[in-house]
């Protein structure tokens, strides 16, 4: 996956966990918590979806890496570089 595809993968997850949210307007540099009112339950969901979709384990100590879209991409890209974006 390239950068854009990793971003899309995260957008797909956010779209699923917050069905009432407009994910097209997410700004990469602002914290997700602020933009989407995400709480700890939602971060659990992001982590669970990463495990389910890509078999990636995000240890609790790394949760802070998921704070914004930009930091998600930075953290996930090395882990996803050999993967295809599923349909």
């Amino acid at each position, binding site marked *: 996956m390239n950068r854009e595809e990793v971003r899309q993968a995260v957008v797909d997850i956010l779209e699923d966990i917050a069905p009432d949210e407009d994910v097209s307007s997410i700004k990469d540099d602002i914290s997700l918590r602020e933009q*989407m*009112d995400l*709480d700890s*339950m939602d971060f659990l969901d992001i982590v669970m979806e990463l495990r389910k979709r890509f078999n990636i384990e995000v240890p609790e100590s790394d949760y802070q890496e998921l704070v914004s879209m930009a930091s998600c991409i930075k953290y996930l890209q090395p882990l996803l570089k050999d993967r295809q974006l599923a349909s």
Partner: protein
Amino acid sequence: MKYDVIVVGSGLSGLAAGIRLAMFDKRVVIVEKHTVVGGLNSYYTRKNRTIDVGLHAMTNYAPKGARSTPLGKLLKQLRLSHDDFRLHEQEMSAIRFPDKCLHFTNDFELFKQEISEQFPDQIDGFMGLVKKIESYDELSLFTSEWTSSQDILKSYISNPILIDMLFCPLMYYGNASERDMDFYQFVIMFKSIFIEGFAKPLGGMTYILNLLVDKYKNLGGELRMDSEVESITSKNGIFKGVNLVGGDQLTADVLISSMGRVETLKCCNPPLELDWEDSGSTGQVSFMESLFALDQEPKNLGYPNSIVFFCTENQFRYEVPAELIDVSSGVLCCPNNFKYPENLSEGMIRLTNLASFRLWNTLSRREYIDAKKEWRAKALENLFTFFPDFRDSVVFLDSFTPKTIYKYTGHLNGAVYGSSKKAKDGTTPIRNLFICGTDQGFLGIVGATLSGISMANLHVLQSKSAQNR
């Protein structure tokens, strides 16, 4: 077949736990003893009418987009959109006592205004109480000391009638204890009723339950109806599996039970020593409810409100009555008086009164049927000293009692709000056996659903040991 998780009960908490687990590919089965889902909040059909058993109104109403509210969290966690619940807000509700009446809607400002008009010397105290409530973390999963709400209210409000008027709706809609309320529970109920408010789903409980069951099944969850858990087996204090009535055995790593805490512990094999604290806290509070289908809208008969919490005496008593029911207080619900796009097909009024399981349970079948009629009539007679008579408009009626609730949900004493002792973190003396629902401490439709979600998250999805299984 070995499951990751067995969930006991297809009430709202069990279904919600099941959905969360199935969503993340856990092998999960819900076992339900009844042939209909829903538990305390189910429905039945009589003479071509589908009647909701529990639902008066859903508390915790929040508009679309309010994601950090309990309703918002629930929808997100179950991956449902606000529109999926088809909620329609209440018109106006009321708390009616002999000399005072307070109205409230889903706009908290109106309630504050009502209090300042009806109790001008109490508004400052009330606002102090609101401040305390707003800053309170009532959803913590850590058990705190029992804190008396009566004492706290008295420290803010000096008028005993206002105190009773505040307690009346909050106790009727979510208090497992008699006379007093643990303060965290008071806060939950205060926020969910006065600050957030009421709505009803179009299509009632049948619609919501079908929505949840479909979601669960589409995620691959298995639902076994007509399957009663007879015993829960453990070895060296660790959960092993369940035996169903009829002989089937199921094994799993984790059990999440919504049967109730004492009800669950009593099923354990080898048997657990239940201390007095456990058995002594078995819930006692239950209700009789009568529903009246009408030949016209309740509004036309002088019933304009959505829900009315009333007390026809000056002192409100929330306790197990010394007679079959206590007619001096109750809840009136008019399902028609919600902002639906079009009128419901039929007018309906529901009346709820406190009732004694013990007394109903001593009656023979014949006496039971007669007593239902007799006490329904008494409840109406007392009601009509306060409210307009609608008897001439009734086209169908039915009542259920604490005995009915026990029969269909298995909750001891027909206790609608479960045990007075809550297991907030859901743990039990048996490892990998957890409680969700009523006895975990989040009550009502939204509460029970959140309870199932929280317990599935905490003990299965988030749990370190679970990840390595």
